């Protein structure tokens, strides 16, 4: 299981050209996914520093690497905000996905309130042929994820879809 954290960081850097890029580059280097960059300049500030708030998703194991990369770029981390644990699991479904009401399939997960389908990729070779789709599901706890996958198994069984789950090792 890949554990993804949602990280919110408040960064302080020099208000000079290239500084924002210097702060964002390490995030992509560690494979982080930037969700929001909030960049407010106070016009009354005489200060030559710039404060930026960044929200990103990142694999749990890479946080320390990101922190040291930012430091190396001369970016000061004022605080690392509240971290929310996110579980993410990707499955593949094969079958007559459109004819069996794809939006219902997704809604069965979304309406649980504890898990949601966050990404969907599909390929439909031809009408009446089976299509293939990749769904990414997110949840806050591992238990919620197990419940969401169980729902998907039921839906796949009902709609005669082939559900391919990721291999989850136990350690």
């Amino acid at each position, binding site marked *: 299981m890949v554990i993804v954290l949602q990280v919110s960081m408040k960064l302080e850097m020099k208000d000079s050209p290239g500084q924002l890029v210097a702060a964002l580059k390490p995030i992509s280097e560690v494979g982080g996914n930037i969700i929001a960059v909030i960049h407010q300049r106070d016009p009354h500030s005489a200060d030559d520093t710039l404060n930026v708030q960044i929200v990103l998703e990142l694999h749990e194991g890479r946080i320390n690497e990101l922190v040291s990369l930012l430091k190396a770029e001369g970016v000061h981390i004022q605080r690392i905000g509240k971290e929310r644990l996110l579980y993410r699991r990707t*499955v593949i479904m094969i079958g007559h996905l459109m004819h069996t009401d794809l939006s219902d399939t997704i809604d069965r997960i979304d309406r649980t309130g504890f898990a949601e389908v966050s990404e969907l990729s599909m390929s439909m070779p031809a009408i009446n042929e089976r299509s*293939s789709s990749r769904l990414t599901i997110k949840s806050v706890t591992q238990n919620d994820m197990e419940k969401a996958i169980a729902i998907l198994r039921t839906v796949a069984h009902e709609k005669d879809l082939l559900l*391919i789950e990721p291999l989850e090792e136990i350690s």
Partner: protein
Amino acid sequence: MKIAILGLGAVGKGVTEMVASKDLGISITGIADSKSGCIDSSGLNTKSILVKKQKKGFCGDKALSAEDVIKKADYDVLVEVTPTNATTGEPGLSYIRQALKRKKHVVTSNKGPLALAYKELQTLAKKNGVALRFEATVGGAIPIFHTLEHGLAGNEILAIFGVLNGTCNYILTRMADEGLTYEQALLEAREMGYAEADPTYDVQGIDAAIKLVILANTIWGDGVKLDDVNRTGIDLLTPDALKLAEEEDCTIRLIAEAIPKKKLLRVAPRIIEKSHPLVVEGTLNAITIETDMAKEITLIGKGAGSIETASAIIGDLLYIRDRYVERA
């Protein structure tokens, strides 16, 4: 040490050749195929027997059956390498029972009898003070049972994950690498001699499930049966599904999985990271063992083949020789 061999297909032939060509202190005193048999307590001339088998289609005297060899030949270990029947286990199951009752050790590559009657056969072997070994039934040349029994002795086995069917792994490798459809990849596997004319047994995961049952019974002694395995084959996979997995640096492989704490026994196509050690190419097999002390160990090797399977059988024979026969 003297051995008798039942079955002279690819595996029986491989064992016969290797025993004859290597100086292992093993002599072959009985051989039978489905039509004939031969017995000589001073050791058979295996070269002429193999030539006869190739020329005439049978190996010995038609008046002698496999059962005659089991009952009359002078041997320490019976090597039972007849074809697998997953429904009845026969004729191998009866052969193994008879030899054990004669207080003879048995080494087999036959999955049917083990999957159907593991407990019965082990009890029978114990009662008669002999060994029943079956390294060749799972993972071909990979020494999985030796590893579990000796190398990982004292470990608690928490889970086992395996790529146990070379045909499926070949098909999935080709679908992933070349974008072939399932039908195209299967056709190619047939041309290469990796798939049977009727591929059901392989592509619907039955072969992998049988091997998983043997593993589970050996490790946890839980008496599980083929019907206890939750099984999905690879025959409905699309090249698009493999592409969708590829976009995430993953691929799809048929994985056999047993996790006793979750009461999980499953064979199904799974999404797996391409960098995972279980992602092997072509007809290779791979098995990951998770234990409490050693953590994860993965073994990779040839899952089939005449000489490769003979390697597993000879490993069992020498184990029996060292453990039982020389002491007696």
